[in-house]
């Protein structure tokens, strides 16, 4: 059993009267990729920024690598690497200069060119940061978060706003870190990202933890049902469908049906026959395997990707 490198107890953060993080507790193990998954506004950034020494705690405690964050901030800062959400560096310095700048902030730091190589930035070594694409900027940010050879790396929404290719590059960089035995704390609102990268996922909603575990574990516990998705239905078809099918969720023009074994085939064929009758048509019908998206939907009634409220 690997040791816990992060221990968080009864953590609370209030902004004025508003409670952004509402009494959460969790532990993160050495060498794992731990993902906070939740829609915008769930409290992911606030939670990780308290661990990154960026925000004060309203209540509760955080212990990182044996150091209490309220007493030993500087010891913690030396041992963690952080890619904050919407971070900035000097746009008028090159990739090399920016990484070197941050490297020199630490008493011990790794070789800058080896980091540049590790993140595949050799071609851009002497390009000003301002001329980089979003994906490259993000990779420079990850390189900078590694300058002190940290034991724990925090990545706050590392792939938000990136195109699929750039996202895959960042994913590979994260897998690389795990392979090197680093502990990675990740936040994301993309369920594929959590499912793909994380050993354990912690689902946040309105500042609270609503579920925590491995993806498979969460899916089999809370999202375990396959879904029948019938998309872009006419009103008439929708009415027919919901009359015939016992359990359903409506999402705009779409009808979602939980498949929980037993009657599955019956439900599918009924649905197929309804959308086949003359004008009451839908555009598409397919079966979706259970995902973390479904876990979130089941636990909150909200959709993950469209935002919380």
């Amino acid at each position: 059993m690997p040791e816990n490198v992060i221990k968080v107890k009864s953590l609370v953060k209030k902004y004025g009267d508003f409670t952004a993080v509402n009494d959460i507790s969790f532990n993160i193990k050495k060498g794992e990729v731990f993902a906070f998954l939740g829609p915008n506004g769930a409290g992911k950034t606030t939670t990780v920024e308290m661990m990154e020494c960026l925000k004060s705690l309203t209540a509760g405690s955080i212990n990182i690598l044996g150091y209490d964050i309220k007493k030993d901030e500087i010891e913690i800062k030396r041992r963690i690497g952080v890619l904050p959400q919407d971070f900035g560096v000097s746009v008028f310095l090159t990739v090399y200069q920016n990484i070197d700048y941050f490297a020199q902030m630490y008493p011990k730091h790794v070789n800058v060119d080896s980091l540049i190589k590790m993140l595949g930035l050799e071609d851009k070594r002497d390009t000003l940061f301002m001329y980089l694409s979003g994906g490259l900027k993000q990779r420079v940010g990850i390189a900078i978060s590694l300058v002190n050879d940290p034991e724990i790396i925090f990545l706050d929404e590392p792939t938000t706003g990136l195109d699929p290719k750039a996202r895959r590059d960042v994913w590979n960089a994260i897998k690389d870190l795990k392979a090197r035995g680093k502990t990675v704390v990740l936040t994301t609102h993309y369920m594929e990202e959590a499912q793909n990268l994380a050993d354990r996922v912690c689902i946040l909603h309105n500042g609270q933890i609503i579920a925590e575990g491995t993806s498979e574990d969460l899916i089999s516990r809370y999202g375990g049902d396959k879904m029948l998705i019938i998309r872009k239905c006419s009103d008439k078809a929708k009415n027919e469908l919901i009359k015939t099918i016992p359990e359903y969720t409506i999402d705009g023009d779409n009808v979602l049906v939980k498949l929980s074994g037993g009657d599955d085939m019956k439900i599918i064929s009924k649905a197929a026959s309804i959308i086949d009758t003359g004008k009451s048509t839908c555009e598409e019908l397919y079966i979706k395997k259970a995902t973390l998206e479904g876990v979130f939907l089941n636990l909150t009634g909200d959709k993950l990707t469209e935002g919380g409220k």
Partner: protein
Amino acid sequence: MSRISTDLKYSFIETFNDKTNIAIFFIFPTILFLLLGNVLGGLGSQLPNNTASGMNYFDFLLPGILAIFITMTGAQMAAGTIVNYRKSGVFRKLATTPISNMEWIAARIIMWTVLVLLSLAVAIFAAWLIMGIHPNINLISLLLMVAGTALFVGFGILVANFVKDEGAAFTVTMGTAFLLTLVSGTFIPVETMPWFLQYLTKISPLTYLSEGLRSSMITGNTGDAVTDLAIVAGLGILLFGVGTALFNWKED
């Protein structure tokens, strides 16, 4: 110490990688001097011997322009950089590393002061080359330039604590510089101004900066210059202290 020297090194590189800064620091003060010198020089010649020492209007103008430049660039650089770094998330990143906000501000104060002094040197060189003025650069005038820069950098840091974007920072620092310029006897000798403006003159730090520079560089009136230096340094410590005490890069 190595964090401060690293920040110093890269802040200079950053500044000179941005070519507009070269215009601001080295061309602008020179142009300002030539322009004002020519426009106001003619006007000034109608007020001959307007001070006891009988210096000409260019002599009168140079220290004032240096003082205005210190006011504008000192305040604007400090406020603009801080607001920009806060907004673009540079502080957010820096705050996760071991450098403290006081180390950062210490490095930047050194760098802003050196930059201002460098550009003053260029302007003085231009004044000598084109107008044939040889101001007397001595310890007092140098100390006045440093104290004046610290004062207005402190003011800029103070402003940055209260404004949210660069536009507002620019408006506040430049607006203040403009107001101070009007009332500080830079272009118009104080004695020729109406009494209520003369009152504002007394409380404007720019007055003491430009008079101190004038006394030390042109008229050789060391006693007055030392008094002015004491006032500028005192105000500098005050503004600077308040500004940096309020300066915090965490976003709680």
